[in-house]
């Protein structure tokens, strides 16, 4: 079934928004996400650039600082709400697994 844009977040989208709950320079996000996930989630630079642009257009993040070409971002209230929706969705999935997955 086709998914609306950002109806569910991919792993990369999720961790970028999570990373930006604190102000972060764009170029440092890749390394930060790798640290947060012990290398399990890798964000490519092209993907990072595209998602930062898209998140800005959607109003999930905002630019906080520009120093030359180094731009910093932080999540907005709308972005936090979206992140929280995703957290609730993942928790529901875990509960369903706990309820039905253990029976097998």
């Amino acid at each position, binding site marked *: *079934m*086709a*998914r609306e844009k950002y109806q569910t977040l*991919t792993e*990369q*989208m999720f961790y970028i928004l999570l990373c930006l709950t604190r102000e972060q320079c*764009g*170029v*440092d996000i*890749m*390394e930060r996400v790798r640290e947060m996930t012990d290398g399990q989630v*890798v*964000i*490519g*630079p*092209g*993907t*990072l*650039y*595209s*998602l930062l642009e*898209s998140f800005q257009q959607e109003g999930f993040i905002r630019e906080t600082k520009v120093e030359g*070409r*180094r*731009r910093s971002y932080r999540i907005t209230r709308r972005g936090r709400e979206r992140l929280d929706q995703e957290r609730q969705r993942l928790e529901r999935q875990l509960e369903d697994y706990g309820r039905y997955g253990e029976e097998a």
Partner: protein
Amino acid sequence: MREKKWVLNIYQPDDEAAIVKRLEKLATKGWFLERADNWGWTLRRGEPAQVRYAVTYFPGASVFDPGPTEDQETYADYCRAAGWEFVSSYGPVQYFRSTRPDPAPIETDEGAKLEAIHRTKTKNTLLASGLVLVVLAIFWSGQLRVLRQTPLSVLSDNVRLAILAVFLILSLCAVIAPVDYLIWYFRSKRSVENGGTCLPSRTWLRSAANILLLSCPAALLGVVLAAAGSVRRIALFLVLLALQFLPYAALWTVFLLLRRRGRDRASVRKGYIIAAVIAWIGIMALDIAFLDSDILAAPGRQPDQIYVDSHGDSHNLYADDLPVTLEDLGIEVKTADRCSYRAWNSTSILVSYSTYDQSAEGEESDLPWLRYGDQLVHFRQWGWELTDERVEILREALSGQ
């Protein structure tokens, strides 16, 4: 030993797997990408090495930019942080190189990658395809007009048929390109939405179009040269073929001039589009004029006699045997000394037909002009009537041919 060389880039920009494979193979032989342009790559010599290449789309970049934009530089900064060095770009197509054995891919989200490709294609390729289709539509409307008015003159000439066939192939390829891309895009979109990846960009439709583009013009050129029949016709056809590349040369010149003057993207694009429209309309008008005229027609044969009238004008006279003459139709011909009886045959791979012509040359002739062929064509002037009886005589004579 030369330090640089230029190689032709035979790949479509979104055929990234094939491009990367070729560049990495060249690197193992000591040739490294230095600069990309519209037609190929400039390579520089170095120590053979195992390096990784990546080709990506950056929608914000355009061939009309005088230099890298700030956004492009930011994009390159992100890639550098991930171990990818920017090598070159042509428009939205960006080339990166990494010396790390296993660098993280530049694109790790298929949805974002597909979106970047689609934004670029919509802005650049589809727009250009639309423009080409409009120009081809103008060309074909002119050709259909000629075909409607004088179908036999076109269908009986191998050279004209070959030119039309080449344009038909070009038109098919111009339609196939955007259709093929849209099919790939919607199928890839469905795949990505279901958790998969973008599909390979090389489809059977595109491969068929590439084969057509590469092989048919060469084969047709051979047919035309064999059928041309004279050095003059061959030369004229080759001139017409060479003129087709004029728009590209003109556009490239305008484009380089505008970029060298440091104009902004909007100015360069505006100048390029204006030059493109003028160049393409000009070449289409030239093609239509060529095909409408007799320039490519086979040269006439030598007359049997030349008649010079009282004004000193020369007229060619022929003395061929015609199935039916004006005399057979009961019309008295008093000026037989300046009456021309001419028969000729036009043959192509599609059609073969004969035409017969009788007319009185020079001034003050009161004879009608009779021209007929496998279908009755002309009989006119000066009060002579094409009666049913005369039509019947013509029909009987022609049915015996």
